[in-house]
């Protein structure tokens, strides 16, 4: 742990009419860690991410992302925070490189720098050879990899990934997890990923948070949660066991 707090919330709440999507969320993420954000569908994970990016306003409470309030200064947050939504979309009639170039331009990355970065990240995600193919012809896995490259073009400090490995084949999944892991270890990028694939989360995440019905019911390193929920001394636990225990209690 590097100790520096990169995401911090204070009673962050979002209500849609009478329904509370996120209820008094208090969370702290440290720089450089891989944080897994778990929870059933509709638990408020995506809403939380949207509030972190300033795409939706919290009803009450505050968030601080890389030192800025996303509601007041969304611009500063978006400059240094990447977001890969679930089933990311592309301009299908443009090729991979053109898609990346467009995003680079929107991030005010100058021409020379952006071409270098595009080459580098296309290489990293293994799409160099497909860079001039129309994205419309890409497979699901290729799109997901291109999405990762697109998020990293702006050299973010923090990346939100929503289901980054869904729909990938086993080999693709492994490569994606390795890439995520190396981003955290080598480039000191903080990764915040929400996923349902618990075995994968267990493999790469330093800490996890479990959100159920808008409430954060657990947060901490996986082994600590295991100790707390499954009793001391149990060695061969899985994250799934822990998760199901929390889920049944909630």
């Amino acid at each position: 742990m590097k100790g520096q707090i990169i995401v911090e919330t204070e009673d962050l709440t979002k209500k849609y009419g009478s329904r509370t999507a996120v209820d008094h969320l208090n969370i702290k993420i440290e720089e450089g860690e891989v944080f897994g954000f778990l929870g059933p569908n509709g638990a408020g994970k995506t809403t939380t991410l949207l509030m972190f990016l300033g795409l939706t306003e919290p009803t009450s409470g505050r968030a601080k992302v890389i030192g800025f309030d996303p509601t007041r200064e969304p611009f500063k947050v978006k400059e240094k925070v990447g977001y890969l939504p679930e089933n990311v979309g592309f301009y299908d009639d443009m090729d991979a490189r053109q898609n990346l170039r467009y995003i680079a331009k929107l991030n005010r990355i100058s021409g020379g720098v952006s071409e270098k970065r595009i080459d580098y990240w296309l290489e990293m995600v293994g799409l160099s050879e497909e860079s001039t193919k129309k994205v419309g012809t890409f497979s699901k896995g290729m799109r997901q990899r291109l999405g990762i490259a697109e998020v990293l073009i702006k050299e973010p400090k923090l990346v939100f990934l929503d289901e980054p490995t869904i729909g990938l084949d086993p080999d693709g999944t492994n490569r994606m997890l390795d890439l995520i892991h190396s981003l955290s270890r080598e480039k000191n990028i903080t990764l915040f990923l929400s996923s349902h694939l618990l075995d994968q989360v267990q493999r790469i995440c330093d800490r996890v948070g479990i959100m159920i019905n808008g409430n954060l019911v657990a947060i901490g390193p996986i082994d600590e949660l295991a100790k707390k929920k499954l009793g001391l001394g149990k060695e061969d636990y899985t994250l799934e066991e822990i998760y199901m225990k929390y889920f049944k209690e909630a």
Partner: protein
Amino acid sequence: MHGILTIFRKEMGDHFNSLRFLLISALIVMVGVIITSMVGMAIQEELKGMAKPSLIFLLLFTSTGKLFSFVQFIGFFGPLLGIFLGFDSINRERVSRTLSKLVSQPIFRDSIINAKFLSGVAIIAIILVATVLLISGLGIRLVGVVPGVEEVSRLVIYVVISLLYISFWLGISILFSVIFKSAATSALASLAIWIFFSFFVSLGASVLSDAVAPISQTASGVDPEMLIRHERIQRLTSLVSPMTLYSEATTTILDPMRKTTRTLILMGPLERFSMSRFQSPLPLLESIFIVIPHIISIVAITLLCFGICYLVFMRQEIRTV
């Protein structure tokens, strides 16, 4: 500003590469060329051995020939052009899931909608200016008359009014593309509005005026005061439609013989006689004065429409699911 420029460039590229743009501009250019050749030849025929009357150049645009005039064609087809260019501008990005990506880039959210609107306006301007230039060139060849300063200024004003008017329809269709998730729904909704304004408002106007101020035949003929009231009500009601505003403004600007935007002109036999004997075109400035209220109204509804569109878009929450 940076975001607007980047998105604007991309949108322009998209327009130019799209089959839709190609088809629309081909259609407009084709119709323009056909109408002009027919009208041009007719004018040429009529003018044989005559002194050329003033402001003949504008006849290329306003005279109907066998079919319809270019101005009428743009009046009818212009709204469709605006609708075609805008009806899927926002919901296309929503369906392809690129909108959520776009809004998470460091750009102001309004630059998306501004750039989309501006690129549509730019495309409309390109099509209009190109067609008017093409027709002018063809007309100069066919009729052999070079337009004077006044004719050129009238044409420029015509293009500006048309641009504003078509932008109004672009605004309507972008508004629907923000509101409706499906492109087909937004296209149909825009077309419904278009049909409403083009057919039903004038129909409704005549029904209303018949109901409020019926013209009854009496022994001494039609009561002129009643007739005037009837006309006034019909006119005021049909002014609700942007189409009426536009067609009145453009016909007045392009035809200097017209001294008013009104359709009903009561004239005694002497006045009629003097009209036919002494042709006195209105100076440009006075034509402009006559249509200024129309132009302001068109600008106002265009801005209003885009304003609503802007507000709705800014308040929408953009989710990925």
